[in-house]
C-alpha cells in the first residue's frame, strides 16, 4: 500500500482497562505515521483505569478526517477479552479480518508473562498490514520504555504466527 493510496485502513483494538489496549494502538499509530501516513487515533472509554471497557481506534491513509470510523467499517478487529468480543463484532466490515482467534495463541505463547499478550497480537496485526517492519521496530522503541527486547521478541513471534489461523 503506497502513501498515495486513497484507501483508509481502520483498526479497532478493544478489551478492558489495564490490558494495554491504548498502548497497542499507540504503537500501531506510530508505525503508520513513520511509514508516511496521516494517522488518527481515538479512544472510547469511561473513567480510565477503573476496569471499564476500552476501545481504541486507529485510522490511517493519505488524509483522514474523522477520528472515529463509521460503525461497520473496520478492516481489522483485535480483542483482548473474551467477554468483550461480541460487543463490537458489528464494527467489522464485510470481508474484514477478526484477529480474535489469535488471542489463545497469544496467551499460550506468553505463558505467565501476560503483559506481552498485546505485543504478540501487534505482531500478528503487523503481518496483515503492509507497513515496513522497520517502522514497527521504531514505534516500539518509541513507546515501550520497559522490557523493549522482550517486547520485540514477542512481536516477532506474533508476526510469524500471523496468517497461520
Amino acid at each position, binding site marked *: 500500500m503506497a502513501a498515495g493510496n486513497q484507501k483508509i485502513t481502520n483498526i479497532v483494538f478493544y478489551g478492558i482497562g489495564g490490558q494495554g489496549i491504548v498502548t497497542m494502538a499507540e504503537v500501531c499509530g506510530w508505525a503508520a505515521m513513520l511509514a508516511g501516513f496521516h*494517522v*488518527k487515533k481515538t479512544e472510547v472509554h*469511561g*473513567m480510565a483505569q477503573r476496569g*471499564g471497557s476500552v476501545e481504541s481506534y486507529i485510522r490511517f491513509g493519505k488524509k483522514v478526517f474523522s477520528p472515529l470510523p*463509521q460503525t461497520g467499517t473496520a478492516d481489522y478487529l483485535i480483542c483482548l477479552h473474551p467477554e468483550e468480543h461480541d*460487543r463490537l463484532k458489528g464494527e467489522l466490515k464485510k470481508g474484514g479480518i477478526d484477529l480474535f482467534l489469535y488471542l489463545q495463541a497469544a496467551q499460550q505463547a506468553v505463558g505467565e508473562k501476560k503483559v506481552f499478550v498485546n505485543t504478540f497480537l501487534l505482531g500478528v496485526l503487523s503481518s496483515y498490514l503492509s507497513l515496513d517492519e522497520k517502522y514497527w521496530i521504531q514505534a516500539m522503541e518509541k513507546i515501550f520504555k520497559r522490557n523493549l527486547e522482550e517486547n520485540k521478541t514477542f512481536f516477532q513471534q506474533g508476526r510469524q504466527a500471523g496468517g497461520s489461523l
Partner: protein
Amino acid sequence: MKSKDTQQLVLFSGDEALAQGAFEAGLEFAAGYPGTPSTEIIEYLAQLPEVDVQWSVNEKVAFEVALAAAIGGKRSMYVSKHVGLNVAMDPLMTSAYVGVNAGFVVVVCDDPGMHSSQNEQDTRLFARAANVPLLEPSSPAEAKEFVKEAFDISERFDIPVIVRLTTRICHSKENVVKDERQPRATKPFEINMAKHVMVPRNALIQHEDLLRRIGALKAFSEKTKMNAIEKGEKIAFITSGVSYLYVKEIYPKAAILKLGMPYPFPEKKVKDFCKKNKNVYIVEELEPYLEEQARMLGVKFKAKHASFAIGEFRPEYIPFIVAGRSKPERKVPARPPMLCLGCPHRLVFGILKDLNVVVAGDIGCYTLGSLPPFSSLHTCLCMGAGVTFFEGLGRTIKDKKVIGIIGDSTFVHSGITGLINAAYNKAKGVIIILDNAITAMTGGQPNPAVGMTIRNEPTKKLVLEDLCRVAGADNVDVVDPTNVKDLEQLLRQRIGEEALSVVIVRKPCILLVQKMKKG
C-alpha cells in the same frame, strides 16, 4: 527561517498539541485544576522547564493567578474542563473588562457524551455571556495552530481568548509537527487604576471599551481564515469543531463554512454563504449555538433534530441530521468502571452500606461508591457538594442520619468552605474525608495535602486534620481503613454524638502505591 531539521514529527493528542503550541508561542505561565479531558495539557507543560506551571487549589484561583500573570506582562494560560470554568466564572465575567496586557488564553475542554463529567454544558454560550472571543479547533494539529492565534488576538484586542476543545479532540491523536519556541520579552506592567480597579465608575468606562473591542473583533471574525469557506456542490454545511471532520468524512464534496471562531459570530460571512448556497445545514454538537445565531440573521437553513443536543456525535449521525431525523439508538453496552480491587475506598463503602445512612457524595473515584455492590453514595452534584449537601440534607431529613463524603483534593478544592459554613451555622454530624494522598480520578496529580508540587518538588504540606480543626470541627479522627472494625466502631460512635465530626480515612491510592513500586 526555520530549518526543517529543528522540526519533529510526533503523534500528539489535542491536549499535547495545544500545550506544545502554547509553548511555541512563548507561554511563560500556566495554571489549572485537573479534570478530564483537560488534565494532560498542564501535565505536558510541567515537563518544560521554560514554563512556570502549577496545579492550583481550584479553577477560580487558577484563573485569577494566570490572568494576573498576563496583566503583569507574561503570556499565560488557564486550563480546565467545562465544569471547572463554572468555578472560575466570577473572574471570567469581569476579565474582559480589565483586559490582559500580555496574551491570556483560557483553555476549556467540554465533554459531550460525558465520558467523565456530571453535565454536558457548552462553553460557547459562556463566551457570549462573558463577551470573550472563542476559537474552536477541529483536530490536534489545528489546536496547536489556533492557540498561537489565540495569543495574538488576545494581545491585539487586549482581551482574554477562550480556546474550546472537546473530549474527542483532547484525547484523539494525529500527526503533529513540533516547532521551535519563540520566546517573548515581558511586557512592562503599568499602574492603571482606571483599567485594573473594577469599581462602578471605572467598570462603566471599561464596559463601554469592551463593547468597542467586541465590535473590532466582529470585523476580525468576518476576515479571519479560521472562519473558512470551502467551495462545493449540491449540499452545504455550516459547522465547527470535530463536527466539521464528521461532515467531511460523509460529504467530502460539500460546500462548507467552517467556523473556527464562532464568537463573535461572523454575520456577513454566514449571510453570504446562505445566499450563495442551497440546502444549507448547520451541524454542531450540544447546544444550538450556531443555529440560534443564524436564526437571528433570518437566513435559510436546516438544523439538527433536538435529540442531537444530547451526547457526542458520530460520523454516521450526519446523514440523520440532513434527513431531519432524530438520533438513532446505539446499543453498545459498555462494561461500567468500578473501584479498583485493593482500593482503600472500598472498605469505607462496605461499612456505609451497613450503617443505613444517607450519604452525600462528591466528585472523584469514590463517586463509583454509588454503583453495586456498594450502592452507598446517594448524591453527587458538583465539587464540594459532599459537604454542603451533608449540611442541607441533615437540616431536613430527620428519620435517617446523613453523612458527607469527599476526597482529599476535592476537599481542598471547595469542601473547606462548606465545612466552615457547617461549623459556623452549628450543623452536627459526620463528614468523611477519603484521603488517598492523590487526585486519583484524573490519573494521579499532587495537591496541597500531598506536600508535593506538580514537578514533584517538596513544598508546604497542608495538614487536613489541622485545617478541619481550625475550621470548627468538634472532633477530627484520622484512621486507617484497613482496621475495618475500628473504623466502623468509630463511625457508629461519631454518628451518635451531637457534634460536628470529621473522620479522615487515610490510605494511599492503590495505583499510586503500584506506581511507586515500579519506580
